[in-house]
């Protein structure tokens, strides 16, 4: 038994749903009680899908237990086939049905439906969502794909994208275009967008592009072994990884068609002088291992950040995660307990978090800016605009979205001069983010306001993603105010208005510290030197 307040991953059947919902012509019959239908809203609300997920829940009740839950499953299966006429079906049990051991696979088979019915083993009490997606895709591939002749032209499959994936929609578009430009035809993209009959054709591709190891690696390995298809190991997130990915494709195919990289702006954006202020910014990175490992390289090698911590919530990838952390000289944090992540962030006090929606909330509470780089996702992670993470455009997007939460160069310069002021400081938030609408909750122990009316709307209720949290910044006690001499007062007025109050306070605090009763122009500049970094 383990106490969880928030979780990074849902149960494994939600992973199976991500596969089923990403695909077409496939139906999922899930033996589950009524409350488990909540999972539909992940797709219809968070991802804004315009169709119900292709899932039939048997919704057995207490009165059905011990009598006819098995019949309930059978009739749900038969009804689902009659109504939806899928090309294939997957069947499985949620956590509760796993306990009543009705054997959905056997029951479905007994119906003798004229389509492939693929049973799933989803151990709810051991594994989680990513496993569920990975395992489901593997079972579908095993059931439907067979070795076959390779296509005449050079072709590949793209493996791993699912429903509810972080930017999968746009990554697939970006990588499809890149491969097309290189002269590689896409045979099948799966699970997302594929129907079962497409899966039967997986074997005609020459190789596989594995974009999301979390949800596609088992299938890719099976294809390698059974269909003889090698798969790519580079995740093309960032400019350098995209170039390495292109090199890997070239090595696999022998193709040499040049790739137009004129759209790639990120390296120059990072090199231009305005970005100098990004140098050595301390970042903490957390999410699924593949996104975190890619982000760590981009952060260090392409933007010039200082990676002070990294980790992932999926233990399945602990080994490569540990190896990379070692290379970076940091301690890896492998945990799915968000309190531990919160503690690590509190200890490290990074200047930027690259994380998931969980870390965005942690950041909000602590007044640390955060950009989301990985699932778990929320409605704002499905932007209307094109916003891939992968490929050349993805590299541009990374630069923009990581830099946006930070204060800008010149502004930061002023802030450094006058840091520690309570109303204008590093933590008060960048000026280009408008009003300070959110108030921090300094102690995590503090309960939410008990006003029911303040309950935020459910999943669909997006909140203002753009504004940064206000925070209770350190205040300096100014006991007795020293006197400003005329010269110093007029010098103070030369300082831009938006930092003047801060300069005044800092100078006074400095004067108090030194026991200075009268502030001269010298005191002002000594104070500046004292507080400047």
């Amino acid at each position: 038994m383990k106490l969880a307040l928030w979780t990074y991953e849902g149960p494994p059947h939600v992973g199976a749903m991500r596969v089923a919902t990403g695909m077409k012509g496939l139906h999922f019959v899930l033996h589950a009680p009524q409350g488990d239908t909540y999972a539909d809203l992940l797709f219809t609300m968070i991802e804004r899908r315009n169709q119900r997920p292709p899932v039939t829940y048997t919704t057995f009740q207490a009165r059905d237990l011990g009598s006819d839950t098995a019949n309930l499953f059978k009739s749900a299966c038969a009804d689902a086939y009659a109504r939806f006429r899928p090309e294939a079906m997957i069947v499985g049990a949620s956590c509760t049905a796993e306990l009543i051991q009705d054997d959905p696979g056997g029951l479905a088979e007994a119906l003798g439906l004229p389509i492939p019915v693929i049973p799933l083993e989803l151990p709810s009490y051991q594994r989680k969502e990513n496993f569920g997606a990975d395992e489901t895709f593997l079972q579908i591939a095993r059931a439907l794909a067979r070795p076959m002749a390779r296509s005449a032209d050079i072709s590949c499959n793209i493996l791993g994208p699912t429903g509810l994936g972080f930017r999968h929609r746009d990554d697939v578009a970006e990588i499809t275009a890149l491969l097309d430009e290189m002269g590689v035809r896409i045979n099948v993209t799966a699970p997302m967008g594929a129907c079962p009959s497409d899966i039967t054709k997986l074997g005609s591709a020459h190789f596989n592009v594995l974009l999301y190891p979390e949800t596609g690696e088992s299938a890719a390995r099976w294809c390698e072994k059974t269909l003889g298809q090698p798969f790519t190991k580079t995740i093309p997130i960032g400019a350098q990884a995209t170039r390495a990915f292109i090199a890997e494709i070239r090595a696999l195919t022998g193709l040499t068609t040049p790739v137009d990289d004129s759209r790639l702006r990120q390296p120059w954006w990072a090199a231009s002088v305005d970005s100098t202020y990004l140098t050595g910014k301390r970042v903490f990175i957390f999410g699924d291992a593949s996104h975190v490992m890619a982000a760590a390289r981009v952060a260090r090698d392409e933007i010039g950040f200082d990676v002070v911590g990294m980790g992932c919530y999926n233990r399945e990838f602990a080994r490569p995660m540990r190896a990379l952390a070692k290379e970076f000289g940091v301690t890896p944090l492998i945990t799915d307990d968000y309190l531990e992540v919160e503690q690590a962030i509190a200890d490290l006090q990074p200047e930027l978090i690259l994380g998931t929606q969980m870390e965005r909330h942690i950041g909000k509470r602590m007044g640390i800016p955060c950009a989301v780089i990985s699932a778990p996702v929320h409605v704002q992670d499905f932007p209307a605009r094109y916003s891939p993470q992968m490929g050349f455009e993805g590299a541009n997007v990374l630069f923009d979205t990581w830099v946006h939460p930070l204060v800008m160069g010149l502004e930061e310069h002023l802030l450094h001069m006058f840091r520690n002021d309570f109303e204008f400081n590093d933590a008060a938030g960048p000026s280009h983010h408008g009003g300070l609408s959110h108030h921090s909750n300094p102690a995590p122990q503090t309960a939410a306001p008990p006003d029911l009316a303040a309950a935020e709307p459910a999943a669909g209720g997006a909140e203002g993603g753009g504004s940064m949290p206000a925070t209770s910044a350190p205040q300096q006690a100014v006991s007795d105010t020293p006197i400003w001499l005329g010269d110093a007062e007029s010098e103070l007025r030369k300082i831009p208005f938006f930092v003047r109050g801060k300069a005044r306070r800092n100078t006074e605090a400095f004067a108090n510290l030194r026991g200075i009763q009268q502030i001269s122009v010298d005191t002002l500049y000594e104070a500046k030197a004292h507080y400047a970094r």
Partner: protein
Amino acid sequence: MSILPTPPSQGCRETPVLKERGQREVFCGLTGIIWLHRKMQDAFFLVVGSRTCAHLLQSAAGVMIFAEPRFGTAILEEKDLAGLADANEELDREVARLIARRPDIRQLFLVGSCPSEVIKLDLSRAAERLSAVHAPHVRVLNYSGSGIETTFTQGEDACLATLVPALPEASAQSTPDQAPDLLLVGALPDVVEDQALALLNALGIKNIRCLPARRSDALPSIGPNTIFALTQPFLGDTHAALIKRGARHIAAPFPFGEEGTTLWLQAIAAQFNVPAERFDSVTAAPRARARKAIAAHADALSGKSIFFFPDSQLEPALARFLTRECGMTALEIGTPYLHRALLGPDLDLIAPGPVFSEGQDVDLQLDRARQARPDLTVCGLGLANPLEAEGLTTKWAIELVFTPVHFYEQAGDLAALFARPLRRRALLSPPQIRAAE
């Protein structure tokens, strides 16, 4: 809409109900924790369940709660399923840890789930055992929010029903001249509860308590001199538990809209012999305000048809409000469970016509909705966008339990919740809503 239609000579109390036992698309009772934990400020809700239960709570709350929430899930793992003794030990350990970390907690609810019930983990015995360990500082109670036993708002009912036997016995003997104690039952937002108390006080009714109380030290006492009014229609088990304690129920329509609020107050006032003049003088101004506020939405709602998918058991009471005060026509009123005794006064006021359905077979019901093509469909979050994409305008049912909608001052807001989707659809016309793949 200043004059209400005369009540129908024959309402819908006896209307036959279409009972369905197919696939459902509803939340389980765990969902109630989302609002209950905000209402009871010193309570913690510990679900004993699976990763699914934790994920449901998180998804229903939208991951949007800022501070550490006063709820959590003790997730059962493989080793807990192996032997029950272990599961109890593990539970004791997690509870001890939780209580040590949250000294502000005075009430702990162990909330049963489908997995805990299927493996027959006895949470009532666990609650007794843990109460003994952590008394007097923390009281441990239990109820079921499982999806095999409860639907959505029934979780609140189960929670309040479990509180009733533990309430102290009212000491005062009832004497003929002594006014009874009034108990308001149902978790309302504080601001709404305060409005109700102010109105009742103005009518001269004192000694009013609320269940649930905001804090555990304010729990009401109860006895034969207690009379109670429900503010929510889904409190069937709580109603039965209170009757068992000797309390008396005041039947009335539920306090939605101007008419519902007035009839609800009138039923209470009658028990306390409030003079008619006093009732009128207290309610005249807020009644007028409520009518005016509702009228502001009459244009959007009047003459429009509405179809309810089952969700919260509020459906019949809301249909009464929308048909009588907003001029809408109800086509189908779906509800997870129709408690005729509690909803009788509301049903009496609904003119015959709508289909009443209880339970669900979601695909068949979707077929009926497509056939009926209502102007507005009230449904859950899983169905809303797909129906919008089919051209039907929808209202999320969950907002009706998360938003203050009771009594006079919220009557306009309640109408607005239904009017907004219709206004929005009109604004965005000609319809260009084609969701991306």
